[in-house]
């Protein structure tokens, strides 16, 4: 049997699990629900693994496999299908999604043990996995959009999982609406594609587009910029990044799965998927790089001053996705995908560890109220440290180093890159290591400030350990030229992407760049140690000064983007709704009615009950009638 035919089962299993849980979840036992949900995702992961091995060992013709289930609808030749498309790119994403989801589901069994509404939680999680898999496996953009909105929905539902707190509802709503703004841009992009090609089939668009559009065509420009709108919304990039920090209101596994590992990288996937279009619109591709660079800096600076451990991680997620966008923008497609994969491992690890810490600290999020956790929770500490190391790109031993280093090199050396882009990434790398290790030192070192009343069980630990190991070793499947030149990952995925065009004279800079980045990362760790462990009073004193205070507030609020949008969009809209609640058009019709009433009053004033005035009316009528008869 051809294992590729099992492809449809990968998204279908979580979906069936969702259906079963939502229809009859209450009949399961408490752990039964979690185990059932986890197993469904686990089997999906297993099938992905089998298909992946098959794909590697004997790739199908043309390095892709397509499976059509049914035609969605067929109007005037426009004929999107419910169909799956498997190529190296979607395989990597599918693998990461199913595998990380599996681990996080596993972790959630323990996490949700005492929570109310666990059935709902697992049902939503399964629905999310299904949607995400639809997104990455879709063979046409409309089906991709289905997944795209589906993950947005699940993100909404899971951020607002603890629905009793109005703040969570607000955060959920904000996430859904802000991403919807991007989605609508993307929708318009889709409309444009349909108008031009009368199809949304990705493969056929990618083959016909270069024949129809010359590079720099305005059509290509608009389509790509609209798709970019969708991507920045989902991936929380500038200027639609504001929802992600608030999205941390959801449970930690949700943050790990949706807001770190998978959904937020959908934008990366979308751009990578439609890379041909972006190559036809070089201006937009540069814009992608600029958006990435700007976002990674802005988010990085904001992360430095956050106190909530999850918000630090959220900003770091935004910043890391900024790196991916930077890579996409300079044409380093495989580097972006590689960083996505590594990031999925270490960021979900960080979130899961943070989740354990938060539970142990009795739902305390503030890192300055933690401290000294190193000894009490050694496993969590070590796994968190691995994750943090990968995030800060500690040289040689962590996976993050290899992926980030590749991006930085391409930002400098690609024909589409520039020194400025590299510099942004370089500064960003420094900030990253500072805020990462600020978090590590403040939370895990120093003296203990609170009692821990909960010890993580084994179901918590195993996923953490697996992810921790991956954060360290996953980088070895793609080693740089200067260091072994072992590149199975990009070899595999480059059947989809064109190779990066390098500027020959900058090729030699690679080693210099690597060394300087490595030194910078270590220096960042050192600086964090100095500032937050040795001389915390220095930072405190800086915060006391007027400028420091204002700077702190500015960065803390995410560069005042929320304020900006509130003032210019939200408040006017609410104001407009308030003043025109009962519809001014209705007033117009009401005015007509009132005018009639007024005339009615005028006329009924003549009916005053005075007999003689009636007679007067008769006489007047006689005069008028006679006058008319006689003289007119």
């Amino acid at each position: 049997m051809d294992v590729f035919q099992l492809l449809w089962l990968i998204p279908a299993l979580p979906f069936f699990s969702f259906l079963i849980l939502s229809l009859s979840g209450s009949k399961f036992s408490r752990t039964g629900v979690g185990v059932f949900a986890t197993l469904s995702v686990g089997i999906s992961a297993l099938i992905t693994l089998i298909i992946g091995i098959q794909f590697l060992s004997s790739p199908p013709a043309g390095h892709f496999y397509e499976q059509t289930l049914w035609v969605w609808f067929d109007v005037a030749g426009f004929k999107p299908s419910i169909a799956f498309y498997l190529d190296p790119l979607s395989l990597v994403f599918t693998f990461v999604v199913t595998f990380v989801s599996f681990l996080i589901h596993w972790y959630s069994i323990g996490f949700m043990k005492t929570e109310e509404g666990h059935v709902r939680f697992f049902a939503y999680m399964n629905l999310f996995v299904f949607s995400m898999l639809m997104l990455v496996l879709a063979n046409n953009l409309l089906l991709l959009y289905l997944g795209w909105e589906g993950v947005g929905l699940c993100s909404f539902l899971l951020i607002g999982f603890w629905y009793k707190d109005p703040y969570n509802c607000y955060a959920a709503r904000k996430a859904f609406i802000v991403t919807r703004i991007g989605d609508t841009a993307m929708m318009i992009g889709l409309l444009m594609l349909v108008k031009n090609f009368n199809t949304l089939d990705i493969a056929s668009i990618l083959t016909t587009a270069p024949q129809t559009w010359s590079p720099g065509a305005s059509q290509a420009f608009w389509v790509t910029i609209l798709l970019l709108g969708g991507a920045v919304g989902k991936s929380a990039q500038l200027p639609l990044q504001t929802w992600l920090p608030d999205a941390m209101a959801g449970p930690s596994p949700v943050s790990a799965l949706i807001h770190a590992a998978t959904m937020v990288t959908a934008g990366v996937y979308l751009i990578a998927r439609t890379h041909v279009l972006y190559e036809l619109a070089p201006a937009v591709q540069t814009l992608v790089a600029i958006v990435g660079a700007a976002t990674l800096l802005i988010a990085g600076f904001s992360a430095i001053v956050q106190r909530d451990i999850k918000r630090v991680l959220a900003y770091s997620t935004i910043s890391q996705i900024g790196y991916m966008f930077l890579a996409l923008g300079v044409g380093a497609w495989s580097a972006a995908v590689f960083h996505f994969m590594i990031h999925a491992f270490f960021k979900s690890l960080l979130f899961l560890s943070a989740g354990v810490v938060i539970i142990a600290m009795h739902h305390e999020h503030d890192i300055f109220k933690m401290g000294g956790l190193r000894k009490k929770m050694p496993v969590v500490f070590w796994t968190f440290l691995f994750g943090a190391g990968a995030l800060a790109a500690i040289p040689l031993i962590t996976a993050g180093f290899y992926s980030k280093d590749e991006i930085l090199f391409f930002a400098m050396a690609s024909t589409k890159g520039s020194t400025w882009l590299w510099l942004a990434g370089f500064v960003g790398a420094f900030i990253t290591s500072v805020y990462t290790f600020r978090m590590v030192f403040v939370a895990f070192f120093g003296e203990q400030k609170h009692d821990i009343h909960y010890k993580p069980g084994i179901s918590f630990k195993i996923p953490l350990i697996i992810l921790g190991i991956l954060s360290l070793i996953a980088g070895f499947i793609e080693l740089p030229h200067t260091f072994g030149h072992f590149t199975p990952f990009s070899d595999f995925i480059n059947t989809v992407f064109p190779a990066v065009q390098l500027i020959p004279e900058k090729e030699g800079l690679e080693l210099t760049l690597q060394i300087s980045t490595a030194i910078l990362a270590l220096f960042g760790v050192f600086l964090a140690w100095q500032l937050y462990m040795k001389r915390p009073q220095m930072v405190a004193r800086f915060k006391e000064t007027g400028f420091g205070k204002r700077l702190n507030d500015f960065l803390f609020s995410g560069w005042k983007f929320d304020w900006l949008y509130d003032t210019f969009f939200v408040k006017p809209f609410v104001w407009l709704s308030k003043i025109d609640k009962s519809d001014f058009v209705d007033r117009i019709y009401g005015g007509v009615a009132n005018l009639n009433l007024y005339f009615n009053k005028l006329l009924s004033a003549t009916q005053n009950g005075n007999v003689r005035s009636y007679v007067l009316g008769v006489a007047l009528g006689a005069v008028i009638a006679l006058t008319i008869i006689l003289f007119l």
Partner: protein
Amino acid sequence: MIYVPANMGLMLAAILFLLGLIGVLTRRNVLFILMSLEIMLNAAGLAFVVAGAHWMQADGQVMFIFILTMAAAEVSVGLALILQMHRHHKTVDTNVLNLLKD
């Protein structure tokens, strides 16, 4: 039997009628209004008789008789109403009796 030009007779009828109308319009006492109505009815009858005389037909006088009958009926009912009005409202002022309004 004297010849009277018909237009003169009609003019008299008109003058009487209008005097009656003025009476109806100006008086507030319902009794006077009733009398003024009688004047108007009488003027109308006069007009019929003048016309009948002009055409040498009996119909004018027949009409007058009908009008007379009607006047009699009207006055009897009208007076009964006035009496009731005076009994219930202690007034003969039509301005007070304005319940027939919106």
